[in-house]
């Protein structure tokens, strides 16, 4: 301040490259770590999976290029039959997708039932939420004991009504349904929590207004409550679909894919082919993974599209 006697004859110093481009560069800098990790852990492995699926490789030696032979064998293109294990796995996946969605209405009704103020409601809520907290492996174990052909609780129960013993997990026509039922237990709890939070956000004034207009029961639910729960329903739908396609741990624990492979789903078959004790056919496993990926991509694209529509509508 006190030295401002000599006028500055130099032109203003050239600002650095970063300073000049700060506005454009900074967001990219902040995004860079995320982009890097997303690329390394998601994008590149997807590309590698595609690449491996075009080879025959035991994970140790050299990979041999086989073109689309893995896909041809999977889908039965040409003079071969469709891979039976793949066929079973695919239809089991469809069963999972459809039946797993039952978790959404079930979760909704439990949430509606619990959305009241009575003494100790928090305890009831946490009890209902409990299955989601425990690990899927434990759920699988509990249910496989429940289904045990001789000692199981299920057979004791149906025995009371005079029905003969059933071995759900040992019967190829019932085993998948038995596992899905086990999976629905925690998934319903998850949907219930989503709806409980959603119900907190329901506008009491709208409910009041509807009540004045004489709406109650089903009509109230359908026309007033449910539209306000739309975001919760959307999330419940997304997690349930993804959950159904990822189903793996329950199958591994409860039946290990059996009896005779009747409870396999695509993710389990992929694991068996590529990483299990008798597996290490990496190319074939990768081909299954790619098909599973394409299936999932259909759903994910739909979810992204509908989120995008929502965002546009919200503006």
């Amino acid at each position, binding site marked *: 301040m006190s030295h401002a006697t000599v006028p500055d004859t130099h032109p203003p110093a050239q600002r650095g490259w970063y300073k000049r481009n700060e506005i454009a560069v900074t967001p990219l800098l902040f995004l860079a770590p995320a982009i890097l990790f997303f690329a390394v852990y998601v994008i590149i492995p997807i590309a590698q999976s595609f690449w491996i699926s075009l080879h025959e490789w035991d994970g140790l030696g050299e990979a041999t290029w086989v073109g689309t032979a893995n896909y041809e064998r999977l889908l039965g293109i040409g003079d071969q*039959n469709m891979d039976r294990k793949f066929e079973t796995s695919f239809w089991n996946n469809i069963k999972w997708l459809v039946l797993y969605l039952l978790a959404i209405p079930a979760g909704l009704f439990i949430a509606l039932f619990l959305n009241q103020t009575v003494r100790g409601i928090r305890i009831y809520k946490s009890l209902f939420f409990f299955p989601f907290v425990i690990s899927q492996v434990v759920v699988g174990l509990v249910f496989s004991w429940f289904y045990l052909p001789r000692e199981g609780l299920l057979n004791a129960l149906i025995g009371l009504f005079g029905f003969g013993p059933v071995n759900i997990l040992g019967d190829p026509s019932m085993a998948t349904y038995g596992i899905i039922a086990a999976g629905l237990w925690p998934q319903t709890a998850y949907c219930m929590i989503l709806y409980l939070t959603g119900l907190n956000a329901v506008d009491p004034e709208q409910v009041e207004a509807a009540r004045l207009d004489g709406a109650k029961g089903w009509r109230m639910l359908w026309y007033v409550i449910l539209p306000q729960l739309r975001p919760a329903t959307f999330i419940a739908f997304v997690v349930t679909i993804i959950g159904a396609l990822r189903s793996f741990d329950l199958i591994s624990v409860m039946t290990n894919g059996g009896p005779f492979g009747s409870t396999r789903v695509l993710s389990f078959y992929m694991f068996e082919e590529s990483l299990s004790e*008798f597996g290490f056919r990496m190319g074939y496993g990768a081909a299954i993974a790619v098909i599973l990926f394409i299936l999932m991509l259909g759903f994910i694209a739909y979810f992204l599209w509908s989120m995008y529509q929502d965002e546009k509508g919200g503006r």
Partner: protein
Amino acid sequence: MKSRKTTAWIALCASTLLAGPALAESHGMALSGDLRIISDMSNPAPRAVMEGMVADFGEMHPDLNIELTIVDREAWKTQIRNALGANPPDVVNWYAANRMLPYVNAGLFADVSDLWEEPAFEALASTKGAMTINDAQWGVPYTYYQWGIYYRKDIFDELGLSEPTTWEEEKANCQAILDSGRKCYTIGTKFLWTAGGWFDYINSRTNGYDFHMQLARGEIPWTDDRVRQTFANWRELIDMGAFIDDHQTYSWQEALPFMVNGEAASYLMGNFAVAAMRDGGLTDDQLDFYQFPKIAEVDYAEDAPTDTFHIASGAQNMDAAKEFLRFVVSTENQTKINAGDALGQLPVNANAEIGDDKFLQQGFDMLSNNASGGIMQFFDRDFPAEMASFGMEGLQEFMVFPDNLDDILARLEDARQRIYK
């Protein structure tokens, strides 16, 4: 795979054991540096054995720094690939026969044929075949165990039955057991491999060892009439209702209570099941063992899976690794680690002493004197991995729905034509 008609060796070596000079054990070499071992002997008893071996070996070579890592046995079946890939350890555990083929082909196991040429290794002749691929040896065995029918002696006595030696007697016994309101055999096929044991035995008793190994090598179609005969023999038992119900839901351990509670009279199993049966409360008076009976006029072949040590081809300390392998198969060590209070299995060294246990004694006697057909390593080690997984699934299905046989065999044949190229 070479035929392994080498069991006569055991008898020969055993008889000359005391007369011959003590086998030279080259403990003299001074070893230094690091020796890294990864072991899959993770169950309590094997773990103690492994740690004991490392301690003993360390005492012999005080300058050697031994680093032992014990990995869960099941997890090791998939982890071995990564372990051998980058920065491999010096010594690893694995299994004999076809199970080591991928690692041999990929050049990950070191060729140890030079060890096998040493005189001390002549005592290991009975397992040499199982360690041989492409006329070279790729590791050393450290233990093996017999398979056979473990049965409730008290139930047999109660019904006045004796150990059967022919298929007719087996079936007659079974009928008597069934008539007494019990099942003949307990089995848990949830994890499939137990059914492989039944197939190994019925097939090798029906068609002989050589046929069985040809089938394993993919040289015989699954739709062959001789294979069908095997299944027809098996079906006789299934149709009698000889096996427990719902076995597809149980693991082999979960099938044990049937035997312990006396609801089933016998169990076709490996010798490792004895410990579990004793833990379940069966005394040696209640429990006994017999060799799988004769079906056709062929030589007895026996399942005797061998567990092994291998040197990684990328080993840093090859000298120490080879010395460790020599130590593992040495007579004293074999006697020690396979004793009844250690692994409780059969020593691979013919000069070693068999543990003081009636099942070990019987098993050793059976494998030495009554397995002239050959030694099988078990379904999932003799057949290539992919064929084994197809096969065992088919065997389980056959045991539950024997009527599906045609479909199963067609599927297996389809797989065979694709897998063995």
